[in-house]
């Protein structure tokens, strides 16, 4: 289930009509249950691959699940109550955005829900007094500013090609989106890396590596079960982002899977061969290259 379109029931009318209620229900159950399994396995796979890149044996494939269960069983220790609320909100909005994508809902709305999830994490980081957490949150805000325009441009390009904001409109296309908006996809790669917090854009936090100048950045003050919530949300997030990628090749299962796999491998590769950038450099680079590519692509769509 690495992609959104893959979960489309066969009875679905590909003309772009709504999913039936029963199918929708099962799709939601599938999304809630299977997505974290896939996300956890992918996280484990990634850590394994990275270890092999570095000439190490690496952790077992299911390591991410061990970590999650262990964290869940640790002593709950929150700095304040509102911090916990934000952790739950982060997870909740992340699940909602994934489900909305699975159900083929309005892309603009999905992106706003997705941003909501990020905002919840930022507020959680700002709600405590730790300077690491605060500076991590500030950086996360900068990242939000950096990638949001690209996502909006992606939706605009999507609308221009399909004539609809609904994600399920992509399922009825004659040819994959990637033929018409390839540059947007390239721009999306930067969003992908920023959101999954990999080098060179792992500025705000990192889950599995010691993060240097900010200790753990935005999640410094979370511990035990609350950290588990954020970890779980990150799995949903990974599946959600891969689903967005799969949207670019929504006409065939295999194409979508291949595209998602390519993005995943690129992510791992780039993470391994780059050091961390400063945030000023990130803003400059992503806006110049990422936003530039997306704008060129959208302009071409409107002109051609």
């Amino acid at each position, binding site marked *: 289930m690495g992609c959104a379109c893959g979960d489309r029931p066969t009875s679905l009318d590909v003309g772009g009509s709504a999913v039936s209620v029963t199918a929708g229900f099962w799709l939601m159950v599938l999304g809630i249950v299977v997505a974290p399994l896939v996300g956890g396995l992918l996280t484990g796979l990634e850590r394994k691959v990275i270890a092999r890149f570095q000439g190490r044996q690496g*952790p077992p494939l299911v390591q991410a699940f*061990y970590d999650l*269960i262990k964290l869940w*069983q640790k002593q709950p220790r929150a700095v304040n109550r509102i911090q916990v609320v934000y952790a739950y909100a982060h997870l909740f909005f992340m699940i909602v955005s994934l489900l909305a994508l699975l159900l083929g809902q309005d892309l603009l709305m999905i992106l706003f829900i997705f941003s909501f999830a990020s905002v919840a994490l930022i507020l959680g980081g700002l709600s405590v007094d730790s300077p690491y957490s605060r500076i991590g949150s500030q950086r996360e805000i900068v990242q939000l500013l950096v990638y949001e325009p690209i996502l909006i441009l992606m939706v605009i390009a999507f609308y221009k090609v399909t004539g609809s904001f609904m994600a399920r409109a992509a399922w009825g296309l004659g040819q994959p989106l990637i033929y018409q908006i390839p540059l947007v996809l390239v721009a999306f790669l930067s969003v992908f890396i920023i959101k999954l917090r990999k080098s060179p854009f792992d500025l705000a936090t990192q889950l599995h590596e*010691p993060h240097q100048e900010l200790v753990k950045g935005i999640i410094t003050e979370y511990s*035990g079960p609350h950290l588990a919530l954020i970890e779980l949300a990150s799995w949903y997030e990974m599946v959600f982002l891969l689903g967005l990628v799969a949207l670019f090749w929504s006409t065939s299962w295999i194409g979508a899977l291949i595209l998602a796999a390519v993005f995943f491998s690129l992510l791992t590769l780039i993470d391994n061969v780059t050091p961390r950038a400063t945030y000023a450099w990130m803003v400059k680079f992503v806006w110049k290259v990422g936003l530039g590519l997306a704008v060129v692509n959208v302009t071409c769509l409107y002109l051609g």
Partner: protein
Amino acid sequence: MSLVALSRKKSPWLLHFETGGCNGCAIEVWACLTPVYDVERFGMVNTGNPKHADVLIVTGCVNARSGRVLRNLYSQMPEPKVVIAVGVCACTGGIFHDSYNLAPGADRAIPVDIYIPNCAARPEAIIDSVLHAVDLLEEKGRSYDARRS
């Protein structure tokens, strides 16, 4: 073995604190993370954040100033937690034992569960100690669960 117990055994996250010795053991702890010794195969991650850690590795001898930091770090770690004193300085003070500003051993500051002597402790010994710590962690986890319920 229950899934919880297994998970506790398979995912010890480390926090390393050098209280002030000669760095020799600290470097050996770091060497454990690298390709030749690679502790990540046992699921160990060097977190650098006490709030995420399960196992506290103390290297070096404790003086008044670093002892304060050490107690602080220890109290920030959520239960269940295990402390390992790596190297002879952290165990007894070693060659510096009768110096004017040192506590002879990290156990004067915080409760220590596992001691590894030697100067400097070898990476193999450190890995072995963490694997012992994992069993202890599971045991402490069970008693913690019993207390909680």
